[in-house]
């Protein structure tokens, strides 16, 4: 999978990395068990600090998206985390400010849901209209 980072963006580099890797897994472009580059090679190829990559991998491991093996390196988890009660609660928490912003800007519930659906379908592999 191609990953691109913007070195001047306001979004921290490690967040850009974790976001893209999670989206890669969600869209099926990164398969379960697939190997990710080592910290050294990913940081060399992107020209960014090794700590940044380390931090991204550590966060992904923490959230259950990747495993870090001594030999095989970093691989995508076979058993991805499920949407349990705790996750749903935290998702709702993270959605609140986003929904609030949309309401402030006078978006209707239908518009917001339509946007959500469209993004979902862009990412989800079961919707062939999705593009990379």
């Amino acid at each position: 999978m191609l990953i691109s980072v913007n070195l001047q963006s306001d979004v921290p580099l490690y967040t850009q990395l974790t976001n893209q890797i999670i989206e890669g897994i969600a869209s099926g472009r990164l398969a379960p068990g697939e190997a990710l580059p080592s910290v050294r090679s990913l940081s060399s190829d992107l020209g960014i600090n090794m700590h940044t990559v380390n931090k991204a991998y550590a966060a992904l491991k923490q959230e259950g998206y990747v495993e870090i093996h001594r030999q095989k390196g970093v691989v995508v988890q076979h058993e991805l985390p499920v949407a349990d009660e705790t996750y749903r609660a935290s998702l709702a928490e993270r959605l609140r400010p986003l929904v609030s912003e949309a309401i402030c800007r006078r978006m209707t519930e239908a518009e917001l849901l339509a946007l959500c659906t469209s993004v979902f379908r862009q990412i989800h592999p079961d919707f062939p209209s999705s593009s990379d």
Partner: protein
Amino acid sequence: MEQWTLWLLLALIALPVIFMAAATPYLTRRTESFGVAITEEVYRSSLVKRLRARYAAMTAALSILILIGSLLAFPVQDEQKMPYMILTFVVVSGIASLLLYLYNHMRMKRLKQEHGWQQPDLQTAVIDTSFRLRKPTLSNLWFVPHLLVTAATLAGVLIFYDRFPGTLAMQYNLQGEVTRSVDKSYLALLMPVGIQLMMVAVFMLTNTIISMSKQQLDKADAAASLQRSLIFRRSWSVMIVVSGFLMTLLFSFMSLSFLLTLPPTLVTLVPLLITAVIIAGCIWLSLKVGQGGSRLQGVPAGAAATGTGPSDDDRHWKLGVFYFNPADPALFLEKRFGVGWTINMGRPLAWLIAAVPLALAALLIWLTP
């Protein structure tokens, strides 16, 4: 007088040097010109085209003049002076093309500023997560045949030690007379084996470096540039394995030539031919593939003339040729002006690895009887 071998040797050295020096601006990525990052569109502009053509013509003309000058200073009839003649030519023409390069580099830098040829997107980096899984080089296991030939040579020398003559001919002149010989010793007989081992070590290291060096995908067309980069790396990996094998065979042949009394012409000609084949192969590959695969035909390029290169990082390229960026963890990356790879001078570890072949060469010279 075997004058023709001498001219063959001269042609073997001079022609590739002149040709490659003149051709270099045509072999770089389309997103660089004389060590300055530009877009593909600018590369194809008539202004920059003229710059390349003039550089090629001037480099060729100057090198030929320097060759004639060296030949006049050290007449080819005087075989003893041949090495000096070649050294003079290589050094002086090297300096000349360096100065020409620097002139064009400065000129290009000025042009970039005047015309505002900054790259549109300076700060994005693109990589493929499975790049190293796509086998950018052959496995180092491909060097097993080289090691087998070396082991066989070692065994041959040890088993047939008594059958080798008391003095070993190390050098012939063009009349086929021995000009330098040494007394038989294990050190002298095992020297070719030692060279073989060091060569294989250096070739394996190079092969590893080709695989690990920075991806440098073109963000304007990542998919095509990925294909180009993979073909580029694989081609040079194959070249290293094959030429490494030829060189290994050459040193086994050298050992064999001590044992059997081979005709001097053969002993002189075989190394020349092998060298010629390797040099011709490297030139052919440089022309065919270009830096980073830039000259490959038939690789689908998304949109024409949109290439923006890996990044507009001119400030890290000192004089357009030395990459110095301590903030970049990459140890190795593609050269800007030329075909091949270079080190990140801002990384001490890169210096250390680059010193390995030099240290091996020094060790070899020190050991030579």
